[in-house]
């Protein structure tokens, strides 16, 4: 073939499918597990060993287990070899809610449902002020949650500051869902609707002022409703079980990122005071076991604080766990910061982005994404570490579980509650690690 120029014309060969490499399952097993004598022996011994362990565990936990009984003695009489799940079942409510009054437990359920619902609108890409959702969840929801869980009347048990923030949180929640609905319907969001009005009133800052205005207006009905409702007060001492564990863990996990970022940036800072202070906090906290940090928070913190400021045990524990988690997170984040090539800083500087913009827009987003696996590992260990708070007397799930064996009906029932907690933690931690894998794939820094 030749064209006008006299050169041969290049035509690519037609593409074809790759040759199929279809191995049957049996052949695959054979080629991987039984390809040599050594491998065959290894495979067989692993299978046999696995069979013994698993069948023994299943016998105890399922086949010989007792599900209905009213005391441990009864369990023993029915099946001395099996697990006595009846005890765990009768204490199940306590494991989840601690000593929270039974008729008030709907508040905990509602609180957790709202916390999750607060994050749903994140799934919508088009929603207005999407960046604020996480921020509001960290900054506003805790006040609302604290009100819901503590109960009490506005102005009496709930301080003015706390009350106002609770109303603002409710207002924001309504705004969020209204905007979500409008975004789904492809309508302009609430603030845009009032924008013409706002820009007539104020010539500068009309957009943020409009948002503020709509938010305040939505908070008013919330305030009216909330001030009429009287929730029965529940003292913090009665909080417990998985509920308390999750509160501490969620708090520590969400706070560990901002604390970690601040400490990591502080450690890299060229200002000597900031640098040494961050270094001191990081190294001190990391050199000490969590239990000691917890004890120090409970015993030392009240000494440092002004005497008229009285902190409850939960706030002290939250403080300790946050600092602890933050110091570890700081090292994770520092690792991420170091992995960012210098060219990124230079490009940002050449564009004129100052230190904070460079960090917030360019460096941290990349560093955090690079570190997702490590950060998730830290999150998981924070969740597991929170069980240590039982040592200083918070009735978290661990202490509740140990209490079962002190109950006169279930005296000496140790193994089953622990097994139950292990399963629960496995489910929680495993879902976190699966979620992290998913996140890692979705947020890869260079989407090549």
């Amino acid at each position, binding site marked *: 073939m030749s064209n006008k120029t006299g050169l041969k014309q290049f035509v690519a060969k037609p593409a074809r499918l790759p040759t199929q490499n279809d191995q049957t399952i049996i052949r695959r097993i054979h080629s991987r597990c039984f390809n040599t004598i050594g491998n065959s022996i290894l495979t067989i011994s692993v299978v046999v060993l696995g069979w013994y362990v698993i069948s023994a565990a299943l016998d105890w936990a399922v086949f010989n287990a007792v599900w209905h009984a009213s005391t441990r003695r009864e369990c023993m009489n029915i099946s001395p070899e099996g697990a006595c799940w009846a005890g765990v079942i009768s204490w199940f409510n306590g494991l989840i809610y601690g000593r929270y009054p039974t008729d008030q437990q709907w508040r905990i359920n509602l609180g957790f449902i709202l916390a999750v619902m607060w994050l749903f609108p994140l799934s919508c890409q088009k929603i207005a002020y999407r960046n604020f959702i996480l921020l509001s969840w960290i900054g506003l929801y805790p006040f609302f949650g604290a009100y819901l869980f503590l109960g009490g009347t506005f102005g009496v048990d709930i301080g003015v500051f706390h009350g106002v923030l609770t109303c603002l949180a409710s207002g924001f929640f309504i705004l969020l869902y209204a905007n979500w609905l409008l975004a789904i319907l492809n309508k302009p969001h609430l603030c845009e609707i009032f924008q013409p009005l706002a820009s007539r009133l104020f010539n500068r800052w009309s957009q943020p002022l409009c948002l503020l205005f709509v938010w305040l207006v939505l908070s008013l009905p919330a305030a009216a409703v909330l001030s009429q409702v009287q929730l029965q007060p529940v003292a913090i001492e009665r909080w417990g079980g998985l509920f308390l564990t999750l509160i501490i863990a969620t708090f520590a996990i969400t706070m560990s990122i901002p604390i970690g970022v601040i400490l990591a940036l502080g450690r890299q800072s060229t200002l000597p005071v900031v640098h040494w202070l961050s270094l001191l906090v990081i190294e001190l906290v990391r050199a000490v076991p969590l239990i000691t940090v917890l004890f120090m928070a409970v015993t030392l913190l009240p000494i440092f604080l002004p005497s008229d400021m009285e902190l409850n045990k939960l706030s002290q524990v939250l403080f300790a766990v946050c600092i602890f988690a933050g110091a570890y997170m700081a090292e994770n984040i520092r690792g991420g910061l170091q992995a960012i090539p210098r*060219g990124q800083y230079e*490009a940002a500087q*050449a*564009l*004129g*982005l100052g230190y904070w913009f460079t960090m917030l827009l360019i460096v941290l987003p*990349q560093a955090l994404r690079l570190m997702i696996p490590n950060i998730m590992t830290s999150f998981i260990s924070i969740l597991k570490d929170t069980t240590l708070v039982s040592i200083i007397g918070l009735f978290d799930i661990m202490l509740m579980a140990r209490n079962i064996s002190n109950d006169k009906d279930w005296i000496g029932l140790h193994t089953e509650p622990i097994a139950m907690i292990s399963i629960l933690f496995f489910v929680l931690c495993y879902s976190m690690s699966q979620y992290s894998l998913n996140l890692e794939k979705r947020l890869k820094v*260079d*989407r*090549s």
Partner: protein
Amino acid sequence: MTLQNRSATTPEPHGRAIEISGLNKWYGAHHVLRDISLDIAESEIMVVCGPSGSGKSTLIRCLNHLEEYQEGEVSVFGHTLQRNTQSDRYIHQTIGMVFQSFNLFPHLSVLQNCTLGLTWLRKKSDSEARDIAMSLLERVGIANLADRFPGQISGGQQQRVAISRSLAMEPKIMLFDEPTSALDPEMVKEVLDVMVNLAKTGMTMVCVTHEMQFARQVADRVVFMEDGEIVEVGPPEQVLLNPQWDRTKEFLDHIL
């Protein structure tokens, strides 16, 4: 797009864009820039060439505060630079830079790379920033890639995004540090075409490059550097075709 001599289309240079006098820089005891004095006029296209390690990158990085220097003075439109690398708003607003390794922000889409500075520094609204960025991407011929990520486009395309990203901030001076030397030959042309078009708009440009074709066609002056010193400066015909120094001739024989 055809390459053509720009002197016919651009106004005569006037005023001084950059003045460098007695610039000296050391890395430890290593003297990398030695008594550099050079003036660059407004709308001038200056090409800097020289062997590896001669201090070309260091020189142009000193012009926009990416590198500190120990002696001498650099001023941009009469504004004198501090010697340290503290960020200087005026300089970053006036000077844009394009790097050899593109340095795009990999976690942002092509469009977001270009709108970033506009929304956060120039406080433009989203739609305004988008329009500006799209028209720039159009100008460099990659508007269709606006929603891709840097990892999903070729090197030549990435470098064109980097140029648009700088241009979005409306700089008066553009610095190019070997913008084409990390590219395959076929992509070099697409980037050079963009630079030639930019030169025609009257932008002041300082380009470190070994593309002598480009230098001959658009440069007003060519600087040849060796061991941290300026050996020769002059119009491209003089420096490239009729060098006065043996070292320049030797270098040119190598790369031409």
